């Protein structure tokens, strides 16, 4: 299909999954007639009916728990959280029950469910609508956490997440919902644990995911015009991390910058930098740079661009590690 948005790609992935397997169900707040606040479920209730695509009461903990119970019954639930910060009431169900249920039943019960969460900023929103909660989820063993950066990846990762027998936290970069791309459909599912080298380069590796992949690509483009060759790796999977791909890239470039919207403090960049430092200590030419938010609650939208990663901040970091 030509020029579909990421929102539409997600909608199509849901559609195709609902069509393929009559035990796929999709639910959350406002996902019925409205089609969700981002219209990701647009038209699905009309086509598949109220027992396949349905509104729930406004209660995220029980939206997650409903997914657990229905997964146990043999369904493949896809639950929608309306916004990042609104997923927090479901945190106990996700961390204490969903992530541990397979272990708690010695492997007898599979949690084949997906929890979709729109995340990230850069949409000019009020408080609670721009958060990057990925560290909370990746720090919980028993969850798989993925995030797409393009419409095609969105389709292929969501298809994979719905088919997988384990719980998947599916983080959707809401600033990229309107990004367009030609996508050949139906596309085959992607592996849930592999990163993707989206641009090859020699001088440094930019490690990004979700909303910051396009930012990193823009920086690489600008870098090239300034004579710097930058490789860009899209993590796709945040848990587990595909360290093989990262090591291969950094072994080649010997320098790396991790770019995310989440606060730098204890962000994914910390883990990635620590692992690369450990594994490639003799190879690295400079410390790993990390770009992300300050240690503040997400700022008012008037200031958000000052705190979001952009090409200039990335290239300044590249300059620092090249001059180290």
């Amino acid at each position, binding site marked *: 299909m030509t020029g579909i948005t990421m929102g539409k790609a997600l909608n199509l992935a849901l559609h195709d999954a609902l069509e393929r397997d009559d035990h796929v169900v999709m639910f959350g707040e406002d996902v019925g007639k409205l089609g969700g606040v981002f219209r990701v479920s647009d038209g699905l209730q009309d086509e598949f009916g109220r027992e396949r695509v349905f509104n729930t009461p406004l209660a995220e903990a029980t939206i997650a728990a409903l997914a657990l*119970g229905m997964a146990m019954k043999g369904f493949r639930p896809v639950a929608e959280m309306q916004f990042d910060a609104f997923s927090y009431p479901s945190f106990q169900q996700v961390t204490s029950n969903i992530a541990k249920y397979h272990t708690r039943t010695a492997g007898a019960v599979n949690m084949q469910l997906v929890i979709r969460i729109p995340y990230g900023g850069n949409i000019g929103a009020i408080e609670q609508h721009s958060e990057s909660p990925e560290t909370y989820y990746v720090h919980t063993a028993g969850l798989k956490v993925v995030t797409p950066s393009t419409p095609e990846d969105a389709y292929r990762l969501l298809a994979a997440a719905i088919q997988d027998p384990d719980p998947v936290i599916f983080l959707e970069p809401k600033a990229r919902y309107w990004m367009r791309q030609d996508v050949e459909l139906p596309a085959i599912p992607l592996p849930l644990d592999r990163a993707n080298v989206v641009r090859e380069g020699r001088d440094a590796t930019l490690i990004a995911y979700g909303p910051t992949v396009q930012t990193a690509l823009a920086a690489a483009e600008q870098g090239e015009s300034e004579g710097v060759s930058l490789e860009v790796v899209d993590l796709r999977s945040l848990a587990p991390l595909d360290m093989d791909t990262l090591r291969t890239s950094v072994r080649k470039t010997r320098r790396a910058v991790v770019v995310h919207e989440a606060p730098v403090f204890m962000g994914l960049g910390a883990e990635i930098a620590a692992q690369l430092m450990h594994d490639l200590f003799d190879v690295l030419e400079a410390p790993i740079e990390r770009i992300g938010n300050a240690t503040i609650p997400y700022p008012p939208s008037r200031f958000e661009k000052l705190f979001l990663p952009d090409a200039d901040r990335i290239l300044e970091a590249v300059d620092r590690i090249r001059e180290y």
Partner: protein
Amino acid sequence: MGVSDMAKALHARPQSQEGGDNPIAALLDENGVLTVEGERIADVSDEQLRELYRMMVIARRLDQEGLNLQRQGELGLWGPYVGHEAAQVGAALAMETTDWIFPYYRDFAMAVCRGIDPGGILTIFRGLTHGAWNPYEYRFAPFIIPVGTQVPHAVGFAVGCKFDHEQTAVLVGFGEGATSTGDWHEAMNFAGVFQAPVVFLCENNQWAISVPLNEQVSGRVVDRAAGYGFPGVRIDGTDVLTVYAVVKAAAKHAREGNGPFLIESVSYRMQPHTTSDDPTRYRTDADVEPWRDKDKDPVERCATRLRQRNAFDESFVAAVTQEAEERAAAMRQTVLTAQPAHPESVFNMVFANPPAALLRERDEFAASLEQGGAE
């Protein structure tokens, strides 16, 4: 008319003790005990009542053995359920084998009634495993420790049963402390909205560790049901006949598509919350004493009912006591001889489809164990 027909037959009956169209409430007197007429309608046979007695005696003996094992240092923890025997045995035996039960952590006797090996369950409390049975084999979900969080699981499962067009009821157990949680209220609301076939069983033992009922619950648990648009009853949770009859009727109500039902079963926690608790700091023996009365003790009370039916004799009691002793000994033997799995097995239960990264971590761990063993 049998118990199984009770809910249906009485649907046309007028107002109940709790208000609203509640035929099950009409079977109960003001103390939440089956009336003579209710008992006639419930039509529980002598043999069924003897079975309830038998399982309660076994449950109580196993509880004593669990406590002994903990005191002897063989278990890390034990959560006694003395005072709950009628609620747990009555409810578990009232459910059809095709129904499901989502227990809370104290529902040990329910698990035993479902046929799960008690010695196997104790391996959880001995720290050998987090999961001791396959829920699909017994239609019995795992014990859930975060209070109240299992309640919406049961609702989700029940919604699935409904969407699969099954005639299945789902019973969920919890204490009165759980009714303070948001998850519990959300689950009640979802169950009403989706008309899920759930029987909510509150085992109100009047204590949440040290917090008494009047500091825990404003109003009455049973009255919450009306707010969520479905019926509920408060019953005397020390009378196994009442529990059995009411749960059976409520499950039928749910199974037949009439939506959820709330049962508040009131009894008393006779023992500490767990073996880590010290109730002398917050209640006196005088508080507990009235509940030791033979009219309040679930086992004694059932014996009285059996005597009234001339269905209680020395040989029956001797056989049941003997069986309870044997099962307690077998439970002890099973748990004390249970071998821990290889430590690396913990890596194998995290995911159904484990990522390569986790398998590498497992192999590194296994290699480090081997290395340690060689030194």
